[in-house]
């Protein structure tokens, strides 16, 4: 699964709090770090990824820029609600190149992953790719 994009596996971004039509949330799951979703101001910002079926996840890798604090939540229901907290992490500032962080310990299976960006190193942040390791 590491090599295929989440969208090719049927995953969808079902919630995103910002939209620039040139940089839509689908860019997060197309497996390509050259395309990105960009936040359009203020925090928190969040997006929710829905998997086609309950998916067992050992770790997620997030490629981003200017994200400072990231919270990840998950659930295993059909609806994008009632999330349980997975982790909260402060990411390092990387000037001039992407942040790439692998977060393990997701545990068991999930149908939704929710990513909440509570603060940034700039007014605007971008997320280039989310990939999942089983």
């Amino acid at each position: 699964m590491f090599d295929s994009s989440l969208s090719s596996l049927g995953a969808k971004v079902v919630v995103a709090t910002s939209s620039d039509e040139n940089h839509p949330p689908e860019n997060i799951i197309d497996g390509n770090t050259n395309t990105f979703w960009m936040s359009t101001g203020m925090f928190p910002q969040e997006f929710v990824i829905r998997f086609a079926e309950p998916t067992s996840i050992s770790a997620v890798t997030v490629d981003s820029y200017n994200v400072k604090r990231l919270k990840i939540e998950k659930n295993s229901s059909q609806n994008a609600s009632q999330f349980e907290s997975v982790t909260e992490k402060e990411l390092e500032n990387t000037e001039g190149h992407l942040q790439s962080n692998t977060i393990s310990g997701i545990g068991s299976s999930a149908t939704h992953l929710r990513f909440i960006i509570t603060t940034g190193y700039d007014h605007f942040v971008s997320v280039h790719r989310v990939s999942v390791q089983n």
Partner: protein
Amino acid sequence: MVKLRARCLLVGDAAVGKSALCHMFHSDGTLFHKNYSMTTGVELLMKCVNIPETSDSVELYIIDSAGKETLVEACEKMWGQPSLLCLVFDLTSEQSFANCSHWMERVRAHWQGLHVPGVLVGNKSDLSSRREVQASVAQEWAQSQGLEYHETSAKEMNNFDAPLLSLARALHSLYQERRETIQNLSPG
């Protein structure tokens, strides 16, 4: 098409006309409160501004914060992390201008190292016979602080929307700049 969002902090001494300006801007010049009513907390007003020659817009969440010294500390808790700054003084009060440097210190503590576009506004330009602050002096100080200077009269509807429109445009250019930077990033 992009809709940007910004937290715009509106500060300055009490009675310089922050709320008057803000309400005039919010109501497109139709609402000027003739009677003074001091803002004792924080008032939030939202206004969507279209950016000329684009299909983009900026939603300004204007945080009109009490200017009275004893109330400021409580209000600061609600400032959050501002994206834009509008600092107002009264052109007929030298003191309100002098206090602007204190206001800058206060708000800078909330910027967390970010670049925050800002404007300095000299309000009550209609009271020309009582003017205590010369435009050139205010202009020079504004420049030293990286602020753009405007003079307004909320009462006479003079230039009242210029400062906030200019801030919306500044945020829009900042967004475009950042987007370009991100497009040219190398992979991690």
